[in-house]
């Protein structure tokens, strides 16, 4: 879509886009180009000179068991966060959609965790599950279950998944509720007259009609789990124990800043870059479809 009527000026439009273009050039494209460039070199141990290795860093990276494991960890983590957060949110939204009186209060009480930073969410859940003083770990101990996410990788993963999913429920709830409210009531009433029960109606009519929202949220949640959960991981587990919660974004940080392995970190950045690009393309393809659905 284009404007028919426009203004004429030789210099004004450049002046207007200049700030945005300057920021993107200096802080986005230049560093991204640096990452791609650095990914083809290995610095010597003293950082004095670098050696060109072509795709060597990538070969090393994918030959590294820890890195391949990090892919698996990221996949498991994202799927768990997405499924847990979306199913809980859908359950809440389906109920909130049935309520007429008091729905505003319910909505208010359900959306505000959106405002909690992932890092703060991490601290809150860390406190609940603290092996020595946490109230949930105490409760589990009463049933003879020992909780120590500092030692047990499975428990560490469970905890970061719960904390990350918790923070994202509000977002999913809002979009599911909007999706449910957009479904014409006449369709559901017609099915009800034909004798379909609530669950039958839900699975055969409501859920399929909700699929554009569901697909959209799937992509958004995966992006969230990939990139925005750094704060959760960093506050709760720092990727441990034994790298069991080291997702890809955490590994770039750990290798680049803590481990000072710049070649590998740059190569990991490039891999992530490709992943984000793919996810963004999928997201946009999908949003086009959403427009067609109306």
């Amino acid at each position, binding site marked *: *879509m284009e*404007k*028919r*009527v426009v*203004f004429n*000026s030789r210099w*004004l*439009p*450049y002046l*207007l886009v200049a700030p*945005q*273009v300057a*920021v*993107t050039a200096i*802080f*986005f*494209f230049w*560093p991204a180009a640096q*990452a791609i460039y650095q990914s083809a070199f290995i610095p010597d141990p003293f950082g004095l000179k670098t050696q060109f290795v072509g795709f060597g860093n990538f070969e090393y990276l994918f030959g590294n068991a820890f890195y391949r494991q990090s892919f698996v960890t990221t996949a498991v983590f994202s799927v768990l966060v997405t499924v847990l957060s979306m199913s*809980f949110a859908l*359950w809440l939204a389906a*109920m909130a959609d*049935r*309520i007429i009186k008091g729905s505003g209060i*319910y909505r208010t*009480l*359900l*959306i505000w*965790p*959106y*405002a*909690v*930073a*992932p*890092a*703060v*969410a991490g*601290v*809150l859940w860390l*406190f*609940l599950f*603290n092996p020595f*003083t946490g*109230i949930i770990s105490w409760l589990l101990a009463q049933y003879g279950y020992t909780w120590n996410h500092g030692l047990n990788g499975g428990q560490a993963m469970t905890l970061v998944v719960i904390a990350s999913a*918790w923070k994202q429920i509000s977002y999913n709830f*809002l979009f599911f509720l909007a999706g449910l409210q957009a479904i014409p009531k006449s369709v559901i009433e017609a099915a*009800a007259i034909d004798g379909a029960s*609530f669950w039958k109606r839900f699975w055969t009519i409501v859920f399929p009609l909700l699929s554009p929202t569901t697909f959209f949220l799937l992509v958004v949640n995966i992006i969230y789990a990939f990139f925005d959960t750094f*704060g959760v991981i*960093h*506050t709760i587990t720092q990727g441990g124990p034994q790298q069991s919660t080291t997702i890809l974004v955490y590994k*770039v940080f750990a290798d680049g*800043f803590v481990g000072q392995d710049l070649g590998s*970190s*740059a190569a990991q*950045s490039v891999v*992530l*870059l490709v992943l*984000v690009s793919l996810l*963004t393309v999928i997201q946009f393809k999908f949003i086009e479809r959403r427009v067609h659905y109306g």
Partner: protein
Amino acid sequence: MVERRGIGTWLTHAGLILGIALICFPIWVAFVASTLSQADLVRPPMPLIPGGHAIANYSEALFTGANAPVWLMLVNSMVMALGITIGKIVISILSAYAIVYFRFPFRMLFFWLIFLTLMLPVEVRIVPTYEVVAGLGLLNSYTGLILPLVASATATFLFRQLFLTIPDELVEAARVDGAGPVRFFIDILLPMSRTNIAALFVILFIYGWNQYLWPLLVTTDPSMNTIVMGIKQMLPTGDDVAKWPVVMATAMLAMLPPVLVVVFMQNLFVKGLVESEK
């Protein structure tokens, strides 16, 4: 509506209340912990009813903190959040205006450049971006905290969509009346974008306030720490027992501004959230 009476409605209410209780539980526990003494917490289970140490804990957090007092971290967070929010809105509305209302060489190139930033979140390019900011001498400065985060493809798109829906007759009328591009922007376009700017402001403020990785990298000086990253510094490494009541008081303070924004500007928040994802 179908079958809205009787037991089903009550079950729905009960289910919702249960869901809300589950979601609010961590916050309630944090709030209670921020009102207890350290002695109440080290012997589990901790009580679930607020105690009487709230003033002591909050004042210790605010005025002593760990590496930096919390009031200072709150100020830093506020400056960063407002800087990011205002910066993003200003540069996005200007570039959207240029792209929609002018024809100039490389217009589409600029558009795609801005679009591509969507594919470059800071997590993806942390080390080189850090090097750029360090090279410019911007570590431990508000500029270093804010500037690298102010580019916004999302906000630019949002304004572009909005401008495209504004009828051409307005521009024609303005031109007949002798208004130039600057005057049209200030007197007509800005007032028409008011609600969208407000909605975007709410979303971006939360985004800015909740930044974690970037402040963690660029602020090594404790007096520049923001509160969201500062909490982590209050947790001990190793086997020391954290001062949980003070940490939880800090967590409550860290949540307060964005939560208040969401609760009191709920309609703008929902509008902003839905629109920025289109």
